[in-house]
């Protein structure tokens, strides 16, 4: 025991002193920051990064500092001594924060010309969109015979304690839904939430636990993406979960990537941004990231369950960035009453 502890301390100190040294030079590789689910075993990462290396001969180093909020936090922390060359996963809600923090560089890829102008959410030219989706209420068609077709429909009394939502303070979809109601009702959005309250079963902290409750039958409706039914069709051959497309449109969510300010590998970084707009990259997104690719390419068969609403809603990203804090506070007062 005694020798064991001493040996352990020595080993630890050695390991530490060996591994702890002044960084000699900047990494040889193209350093890419991405959110965790992107690099996960079931995400696009394991397919697209090797593909990029193979095509360009540029070695990549993938780092995931957590979810997309944590990725941005880390970039802001490192603003003065940036480690990353590329960041993947800055969405339309966070774009303004990232741009004002001055951590991104402008780059306009030629490939952007292939893309619907409405999807290029960052007009300042920093962030290149690669995929998008629509928030939607997913419902269990065995329990809900008449699906809601507008936000107002969700207030129907028969839906008492039937909806699972997410908290905008801790979850991306949660924030998306809050902005959706803001876009739809303007200043009156708190009134809407007050009326919605009796129909909410719970507001979970993250999409994962909320959706978990839903598939376990806790409630017939949950906040998710219109692409969610495609998963159940693809892997479970089931079409009972359906997305409710709203007449006034669903709120859109666009994700983009950008070059990090201070990157010493401008040329390689540009190649990577071009790559994410290439068909090779884009075709992997539907079944791994469960989002629509920004390029107009054929979708997998299961995507027939993933509806694209004809109309969509989106707040200007600058307005959103400026007001999110105060909207969250108003929202809190509304739902806590």
């Amino acid at each position, binding site marked *: 025991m005694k020798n064991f502890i001493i040996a352990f301390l020595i080993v630890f100190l050695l390991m530490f002193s060996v591994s702890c040294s002044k960084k000699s030079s900047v990494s040889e590789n193209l350093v890419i920051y991405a959110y965790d689910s992107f690099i*996960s075993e079931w995400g696009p990462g394991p397919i697209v990064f090797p593909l990029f290396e193979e095509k360009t001969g540029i070695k990549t180093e993938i780092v995931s500092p957590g979810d997309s909020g*944590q990725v941005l*936090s880390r970039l802001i922390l490192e603003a003065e001594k940036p480690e990353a060359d590329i960041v993947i996963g800055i969405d339309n809600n966070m774009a303004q924060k990232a741009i004002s923090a001055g951590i991104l560089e402008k780059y306009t890829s030629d490939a952007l010309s292939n893309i619907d102008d409405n999807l290029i959410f960052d007009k300042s030219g920093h962030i290149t969109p690669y995929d998008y989706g629509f928030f939607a209420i997913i419902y269990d068609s065995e329990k809900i015979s008449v699906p809601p077709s507008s936000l107002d429909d969700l207030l129907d009394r028969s839906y008492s304690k039937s909806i699972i939502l997410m908290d905008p303070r801790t979850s991306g979809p949660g924030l998306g839904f809050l902005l959706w109601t803001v876009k739809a009702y303007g200043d009156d959005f708190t009134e809407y939430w007050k009326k919605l309250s009796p129909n909410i079963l719970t507001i979970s902290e993250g999409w994962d636990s909320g959706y978990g409750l839903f598939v376990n039958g806790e409630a017939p409706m949950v906040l998710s993406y219109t692409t969610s039914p495609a998963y159940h069709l693809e892997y479970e051959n089931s079409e009972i979960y359906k997305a409710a497309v709203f007449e006034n449109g669903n709120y859109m969510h666009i994700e983009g990537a950008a070059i990090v300010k201070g990157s010493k590998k401008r040329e390689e970084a540009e190649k990577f941004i071009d790559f994410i707009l290439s068909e090779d990259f884009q075709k992997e997104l539907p079944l791994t990231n469960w989002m629509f690719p920004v390029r107009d390419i054929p979708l997998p068969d299961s995507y027939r369950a993933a509806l694209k609403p004809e109309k969509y809603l989106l707040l200007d990203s600058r307005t959103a960035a400026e007001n999110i804090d105060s909207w969250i506070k108003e929202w809190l007062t509304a739902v806590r009453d």
Partner: protein
Amino acid sequence: MTVKKSAAVFYSLPFLFILFAFYFPLANLLISGVSPSSLINIFSESYFKSVFIFTLKQAFFSAFFSMIPGLTGAYILVNFNFPFKNIIKSITLVPFVLPSIIVVLGFVLLFGNNGLINSAAMKLFDLEKPPFLILYSFKAIILAHVFYNSPLFIRIVSSAWERISGDIIEAAESLGATKLRVFITAVLPQILPPVIAAFSLIFILCFMSFSIILVLGGGPKFTTLEVEIYRLVRISMDIRAACSLSVLQSFVTLSFLFIYSFYQKKTSMIYSDNFRIPEKKSSSSLLQIILIVLFFLFLFIIIIMPLAMIIFESFRFKSSHAGNAVFSLRWYIKSFSELGFRPVKNSLILASVNTLLTCAVSVAALSFLQRKKTVMKVLIETFFAMSLGVSSIILSLSYMKAVSDFQIEIQPLVLLSMLHSVIFLPLVFKSISVFYDKIDRSIIESAESIGADRRRILFTIELPLVRGGIITGGVLAFALSMGEINSTLMIAPDRFTTIPVAIYRLIGSYNFSQACAMGSILIVTCVISFFLIDKSGRIEL
């Protein structure tokens, strides 16, 4: 002189460690700009007060309700022998390692509107609506916290209770005291310090809980301070304010810990020289039998069943949604073919390093502290416990910033073990300190006076006497590290997948059943590990 020097090096190690691994990065994060303005904003919120009061309230009730089965469980474990005792002991700690998402799933599968209890009742009585609305209320929060924490209570209290001298109890009994009187006069004063220690730990853990509270409580009506920290990091991107709030939260939790510690120091002065293991009872009164039955019922419903539901779910496979579920190893086969043994291996490595490091640092610090006066002791203990209240997202960010600011190249795995150790050190520290406080000073002084140096005293006297605390603390550190997810996600090196990370990623990509399979693997790995740690810890040093 060399002995003296090596002792100085040895005793300075824990201080260097905590300074380097906690205070230095945190200070670096704070120094670059505390933002009081955003903090003032938070405080001026009308709802902040209610959040704060609610945080305290739920923490208190959670700790209180964990104490009831906790004390009963400790009593039964200490006083009665029954088969599979050690296995049961190991199983009760499993909730502690589970990521909250798995706990939520387990609870939903059992207590949910569509869960086992409700659907059975609906079938049995032919009901339209679920009869038991258990979840999404304050009581669900308490239920889940009891599930999480009462095993911790049992652990800490029973390991100290086992050491109460049989002489004292028998002396009290021989003086004609009733069982209750024996308990109040002879047992209670001695187990009070560990009871207080366990209570305060659970209080602090629940104080920082947030996902369980949001999901099972039913939404933002029930919000803790920790949620605000997340909002500041994720939405407002105001890391300084988040950090300030986190440090503030730490001060709040620690002032509670401080009061408890001080009180505990006072009560632990009770000296018990005649240590003898009391006889285990084989025959028992009716009341005791009822107590045991009730406890096992509790154990079964609150702790075993949610776990069993997860394991059950992991073996179910439906080929189509409408079809009947069949028993299948599909999810396990899929997990192993996709991930191999990597997550299990990574989790075990991380947890073992964390266990050894936290135990070594705690023992070195406590051995040093033992020679200090009470006030000094409590202050230094607080110094070591400070990380308990700081949210793990803040700690992870502070690590990232320090690495970036100073351009230090540290292997991510080493960095991650350091971070885990800092996060869990206070718990290990506390469970070992309960034992250190019981060592009579004159025992150490006797050894010193007959020529033993500090190292010899440490290894031949102190370590054997605090072994129970090391086992408890070691198991806790192991369990917590096995289940940790936040900082692992943020700091872990590329493709370093632990079991909880795999669970998180699986659920993030809709694979709930496979996540249950990973969860079951986590449960089994932990039960085996706890059992082994317990066993190896009991080997004579």
